[in-house]
């Protein structure tokens, strides 16, 4: 027995009570908190509380050389780090007025899509776990690990690839890599049935996910929702198609959409996207060997790129939505200002608060995970 004290919580004169989800809570994605005011099981008001992962990225980046920031940027979104480096590189390239060689662009597409596959596999597991089903998480994470093996193969790092560099990519692909990629894609496709059976057509899961966290198209647009979450509301929009970057305009893929805007629509969109990514990767396997050339344009001494004065707003479609970097240079060896617009900064705060209102306690975690909100993007 040990002495133990308790903090008194004033409940007020109503029978509403407050509970905290997070930051140390399994129902929260990452290190994030959500304060709920409950009436019975129904949420009266949810308030997001961020900042637990705040590292002051934007400040840090102002204090580092252009190239040093490369190692920093992937940390902004841990489950899906590749788009971070690509978009940063793209922004810097735009200011410098250079373009990555075509081969590098194809490799970047490959990296982005692999990262999307990994991120979606991760999300399935997370989403399922919030409804009490852990097996998809075990499967998804294990399968994602196979993707990470490939990342390790060609970028040298499992999670943080730090593989892009303004002007191209850092290294040529190792021999036989595309073959390995092809095997992985075969494997992932062969797993489709298992996942469908276990998760996507699981009656209990469908019941839980349908009509949970329903977001109308109008609300979604108003709240600045992007990415798969927006597509789940019925808007066929994808930056890869509508504001193409790299070589996406040469690729053949579809934009999966759903009409209902609920958790189930969102996970279905993600599922379809995963297979679209596989389709894109197949095209990369086919095309890449025929694209010769350098993987990097010559850049001046990395210790002191003086990027000329200017600004650029580069954006890509990450697995979570619209990811954008606003980079300002004043001609010095360090960025003057970098503003990171993480997709989750919209999803995890206002959208989540909007959806939580009136939702049930059981559904909060699911709503958050179905939005695939990534807290470090909010906190930076």
């Amino acid at each position, binding site marked *: 027995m040990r002495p133990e004290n308790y903090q008194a919580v004033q409940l007020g004169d109503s029978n509403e009570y407050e509970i905290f989800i997070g930051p140390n809570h399994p129902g929260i994605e990452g290190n994030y908190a959500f304060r709920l005011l409950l009436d019975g099981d129904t949420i009266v008001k949810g308030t997001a509380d961020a900042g637990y992962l705040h590292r002051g990225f934007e400040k840090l980046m102002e204090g580092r050389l252009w190239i040093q920031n490369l190692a920093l940027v992937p940390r902004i979104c841990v489950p899906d780090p590749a788009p971070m480096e690509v978009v940063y590189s793209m922004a810097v390239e735009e200011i410098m007025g250079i373009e990555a060689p075509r081969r590098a662009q194809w490799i970047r597409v490959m990296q982005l899509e692999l990262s999307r596959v990994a991120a979606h596999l991760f999300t399935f597991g997370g989403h399922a776990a919030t409804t009490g089903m852990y097996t998809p998480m075990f499967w998804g994470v294990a399968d994602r690990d196979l993707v990470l093996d490939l990342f390790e193969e060609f970028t040298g790092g499992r999670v943080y690839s730090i593989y892009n560099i303004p002007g191209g990519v850092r290294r040529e692909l190792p021999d036989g890599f595309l073959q390995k990629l092809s095997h992985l894609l075969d494997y992932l496709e062969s797993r489709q049935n298992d996942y469908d059976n276990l998760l996507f057509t*699981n009656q209990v899961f469908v019941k839980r996910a349908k009509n949970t966290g329903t977001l109308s198209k109008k609300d979604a647009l108003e709240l600045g929702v992007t990415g798969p979450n927006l597509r789940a509301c019925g808007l066929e929009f994808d930056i890869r198609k509508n504001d193409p970057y790299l070589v996406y305009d040469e690729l053949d893929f579809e934009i999966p959409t759903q009409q209902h805007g609920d958790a189930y629509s969102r996970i279905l969109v993600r599922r379809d996207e995963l297979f679209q990514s596989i389709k894109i990767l197949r095209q990369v396997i086919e095309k890449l060997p025929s694209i010769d050339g350098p993987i990097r344009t010559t850049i001046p001494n990395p210790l002191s790129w003086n990027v000329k004065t200017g600004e650029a707003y580069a954006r890509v479609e990450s697995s979570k939505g619209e990811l954008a970097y606003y980079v300002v240079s004043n001609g010095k060896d360090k960025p003057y200002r970098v503003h990171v617009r993480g997709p989750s900064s919209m999803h995890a705060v206002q959208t989540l608060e909007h959806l939580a209102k009136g939702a049930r306690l059981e559904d909060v975690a699911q709503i958050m995970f179905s939005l695939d909100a990534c807290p470090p993007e909010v906190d930076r």
Partner: protein
Amino acid sequence: MNYSELLAELFLMPLVAFVVGLLMVLMMRKISARLQRRIGPPFFQPIYDIIKLYGKDTQISHGLIHDIGIVMAVGGYIGAELLLPVPGMDGIADKGGIITLSYFLMIPSLGMALGVGQCANPNGSIGISRALTAMLAYDIPFILIVFGAAWHYESTSLVGMLEYQQTHQWGIVEMPLLAIAGLFALQGMLGKQPFEIYIAPAEIATGPMVEMSGKYMGGLFVMQSFQLYTAGVLYASLFLGGGTTWLELLPKAFFVVAIPMSIAFMFPRYKTEDVVRLMWKWPVMLALISLAFIL
């Protein structure tokens, strides 16, 4: 029967139940591991866990009621074990029938409710209110099943039921619908997905267990192994004819427990109202139809 033998039985029955229960816990974890494509825990893992929990230096009590709650939780099951006849040991099964057993099975939940209430953790309170709702949900079919079985076997004593089945056919053959309803109730009693809402880590941080720690948590682990054993043996006794030897009973019990376990890792959890709706719909309906036949 002399008293020394009875005393030995009273000591042995919970002990056997505990050991078998631990094996069942191990089986449960191994099943989940297999389905999740991994190796799973080592053989002695359940016992390590319990000893570790009891060996903790810090033991936080939230007051007397909290302590009593856990004692009730474990004690309820120990009581239940004594009422469960097993090969070679009847304990006090002939003194109290299945009705008494049913009451004993409710004690742990109530004990938990008491203990958790004392913790003053909102997650725990929500959890326990859900647990009680869930208990209400699965107790209706459970009571119906007990009622049906007793009617069918024309006995409220488990010993009698076993004797009946050994002379006649297994309960599952004679009352298949009731047996299926029993499976539902079993899933609910064990608190496994899809009826797992009261634990719900993602929402309320394992609900009732949120403030449990050290030996209290250990108590819950012990309770869990008793619970699995009770469920397995009770179902085997009600519908699978029990067993005259341990070799006959244990495979049945393990099999019975394996069913909800295998299902559990394939499903998410229902919401509370869905649990109630489902439990009061299908198993109750099945049980009622079955009852109609029996009556």
